[in-house]
């Protein structure tokens, strides 16, 4: 008969233990295993020696500055798009926001190369304008600023998605009240809109920051020529000279990244503390600003940004896929589709890679949606202290470079799992588990920030209607946080679709991913094939997004981020 619980909330009994176990398995266990592996060398004093190297500290400093500046750029660009596309009467919102999803889809190293190409001596654009610098000129992107800029470009869609969800739940009347109080649109933005969507902004900024901390592709291409090392490139170079203390080194460097991530999380918690974002009463009416004369310039700005962020690199990618060798000038004579032919029809591996990546990305996205909603619910409804701990644990794997995570997972799973006796190492499942671990934070953040903004009365009303936990989860909570949940899913899907470094060590025959395939082609000098495959990946994502668009009518409102 009567179901009693001590706290009066009806979270199922299993929920909290489930979350703890999930977090322990996905996040804590691999990290602990890595620490254990590195323990001997940590004990032997090698760690101290490592920490005594100025290079390590320089790398740590570089990591912090590039990620921080990159975060600022990402927040600026992503924030601009989110505000313009959700609140203002900009034309062509659909196309703009659709396209704005795509820069994340261009692999970081491709993005970096495209930018180097765009601004360097061989830039077709600059050549055409007669502005190309002479051969051998210094490349301005080979700098802290350049790395940060590309981080910003690469990660701004993450900010966009997580902020958009927050903006959609802004109460219209609150904004109107501010206008009537005499606040100019800028003041409304500063005093009402931004503070109220702070959870979304901070979540987006945190994702952008952490993505920068763990990024390898961009600093590898932009940093190394200028001898700028970040922790991920440093870790990589340590791996290159595989000596006796490598695991110790990785463990120590990873711990440094972990500390950074946790510190970031603390700052985030601090920024959100003591405030209330629960929108009282009904929200659901979206606010809009009429821009008037500012509209055309703003639209121009958005398109220009999109051109630089997406269209130019994509064109570079396409042209690289059409010429037979690097450095050959594209012309009607040199162009050929043989790379596509090779990739699509001759290399069976790439076809397997398509299948694997779609499976992995789809499963990870759906899996993390479910885990994320449950975890987000438990975190926002439970004790704040425990929540802070769990969030920190969830955050670290995403902040660590993929290669570290994959080493950790090899360590854990190379041997058969005790008790069960099965080995998932060498199968696609280990990549899936590693993805779940690695992208947990990405899937969770937007959901948590949306739950923070929710008026608790809405759930209470459902409880009183007799809806048990699952009912109200599906009927009330998930639809209400649909924009955030959709954003989370799409983010996870996009990121895992062209993920490279996690799967790099975990794949084996038959389980290669698209990222691995592209990397391998690129690494072995087949740039045309690599570019062709990258183009195909972008095309595939566009097709998937269009499919989503077709289903949009049957999904809860706001799930599909480019729809209004």
């Amino acid at each position, binding site marked *: 008969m009567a179901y009693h619980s001590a706290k009066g909330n009806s979270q199922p009994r299993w929920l909290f233990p489930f979350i703890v176990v999930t977090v322990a398995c996905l996040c804590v266990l691999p990290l602990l295993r890595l620490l254990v592996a590195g323990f001997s060398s940590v004990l032997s004093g090698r760690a101290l020696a490592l920490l005594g190297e100025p290079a390590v500290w320089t790398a740590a400093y570089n990591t912090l500055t590039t990620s921080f500046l990159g975060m600022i750029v990402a927040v600026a660009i992503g924030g601009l798009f989110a505000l313009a596309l959700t609140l203002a009467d900009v034309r062509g919102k659909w196309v703009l926001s659709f396209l704005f999803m795509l820069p994340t889809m261009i692999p970081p190293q491709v993005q970096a190369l495209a930018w180097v190409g765009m601004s360097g001596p061989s830039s077709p654009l600059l050549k055409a304008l007669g502005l190309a610098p002479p*051969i051998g000129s210094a490349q301005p992107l080979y700098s802290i600023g350049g790395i940060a800029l590309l981080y910003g470009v690469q990660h701004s869609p993450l900010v966009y998605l997580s902020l958009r969800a927050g903006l959609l739940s802004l109460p219209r009347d609150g904004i109107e009240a501010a206008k009537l109080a005499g606040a100019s649109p800028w003041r409304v933005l500063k005093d009402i809109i931004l503070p109220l969507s702070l959870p979304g902004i901070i979540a987006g900024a945190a994702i952008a920051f952490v993505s920068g901390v763990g990024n390898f592709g961009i600093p590898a*291409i932009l940093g190394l020529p200028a001898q700028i090392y970040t922790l991920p490139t440093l870790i990589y170079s340590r791996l290159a000279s595989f000596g006796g203390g490598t695991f110790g080194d990785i463990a120590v460097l990873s711990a440094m990244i972990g500390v950074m991530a946790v510190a970031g999380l603390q700052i985030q918690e601090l920024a959100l503390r003591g405030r209330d974002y629960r929108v009282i009463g009904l929200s659901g009416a979206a606010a809009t600003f009429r821009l008037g004369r500012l509209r055309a310039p703003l639209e121009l700005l958005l398109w220009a940004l999109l051109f630089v962020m997406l269209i130019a690199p994509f064109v570079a990618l396409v042209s690289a896929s059409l010429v037979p*060798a690097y450095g050959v000038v594209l012309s009607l004579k040199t162009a050929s589709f043989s790379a596509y032919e090779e990739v699509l029809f001759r290399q069976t591996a790439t076809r397997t890679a398509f299948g694997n990546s779609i499976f992995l990305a789809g499963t990870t996205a759906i899996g993390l949606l479910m885990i994320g909603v449950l975890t987000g619910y438990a975190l926002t409804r439970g004790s704040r202290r425990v929540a802070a701990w769990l969030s920190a644990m969830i955050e670290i794997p995403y902040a660590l470079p993929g290669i570290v995570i994959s080493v950790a997972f*090899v360590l854990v799973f190379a041997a058969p799992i005790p008790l069960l006796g099965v080995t998932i190492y060498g199968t696609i499942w280990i990549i899936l588990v590693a993805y779940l671990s690695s992208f947990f934070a990405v899937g969770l953040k937007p959901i948590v920030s949306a739950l923070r903004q929710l008026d608790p009365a809405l759930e209470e009303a459902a409880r009183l209607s007799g809806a048990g936990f699952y009912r109200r989860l599906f009927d009330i909570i998930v639809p209400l946080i649909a924009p955030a949940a959709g954003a989370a899913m799409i983010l996870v899907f996009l990121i895992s679709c062209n993920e490279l470094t996690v799967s790099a060590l975990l794949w084996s025959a038959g389980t290669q991913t698209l990222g691995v395939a592209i990397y391998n082609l690129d690494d072995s000098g087949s740039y045309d094939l690599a570019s062709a495959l990258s183009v195909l990946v972008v095309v595939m994502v566009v097709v998937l997004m269009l499919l989503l668009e077709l289903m949009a009518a049957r999904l809860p409102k706001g799930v599909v981020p480019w729809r209004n």
Partner: protein
Amino acid sequence: ANLVLYTSQPNEDAQATVDGFMAANPDIKVDWVRDGTPKIMAKLMAEIEAGNPAADLLLIADTVTLQRMKEAGQLMAYRSPEAANYDASLYDADGAYYSTKLITTGIMYNTAAAMKPTSWADLAKPEAKGLVAMPSPLTSGAALIHAQTLAGVPSLGWDYYKALQANGAVAAGGNGAVLKSVASGEKAYGVVVDYMPIREKAKGAPVEFVFPTEGVSAVTEPVAILSTSKNAEAAKKFVDYVLSEKGQEGFLKLGYIPARNGMPVPEGFPARDTIKVLPIDAAAALKATEDDLKTFSGIFGTN
């Protein structure tokens, strides 16, 4: 179980090698995993740490790494009958690893460049100021061997590297990055492994490759059997195959210089005996690795 090969050869090459072997030994199936040497080693080391390495065979860029593994007891000694056809410096005396091909490191230049370099010393000339790119030993195994080789040449030595640094050369990334940077005209000259620019040139890229007069360094892409292999017999067959004439012809077709005596060189290469390969002692190189890396980093300001 299938034979598992970990290799750092490019995709197509790896596939071709494996296909050739399976054609010769239809009863053995081979699974292969390809990645850059550092990554494939990271994977293997993690597996060994976890006590369950999946690979039977390694076919990777440089002997130094294998020498380290041999010293750690991770390689199986196997005396291949094919060894007789190889120069003694190209395989381990105990049979822990065997070189399969020669990949030399020389100079490439963009055809638009003002100077046509012919020797290592040319890169330190004022004409090349700020125009030289080379791979970092921290990233590329071949680059490490290269640095260690040149450092051992009396006329060059570490002073040569200091001169390069003073001349504005950058050392970063792997061979691929150097190739791109020179092919795209960002830099004019690059230190790079031979087959890359030669292949690209064949495809029409505006680049040239030269074997400098002082001689070239070489990595030999050795093959080795892991001591933990559960398919030792099949693995031995694989080693025999790659060392055999048939296997070596396969490498030749892919555009590499075969290691076996008496083989021709691929198209676009000068005759084998005109290529002066500078010597290196793997065991000594291994011992010096840490110091050399430090020295190199000291010069180029990397870590």
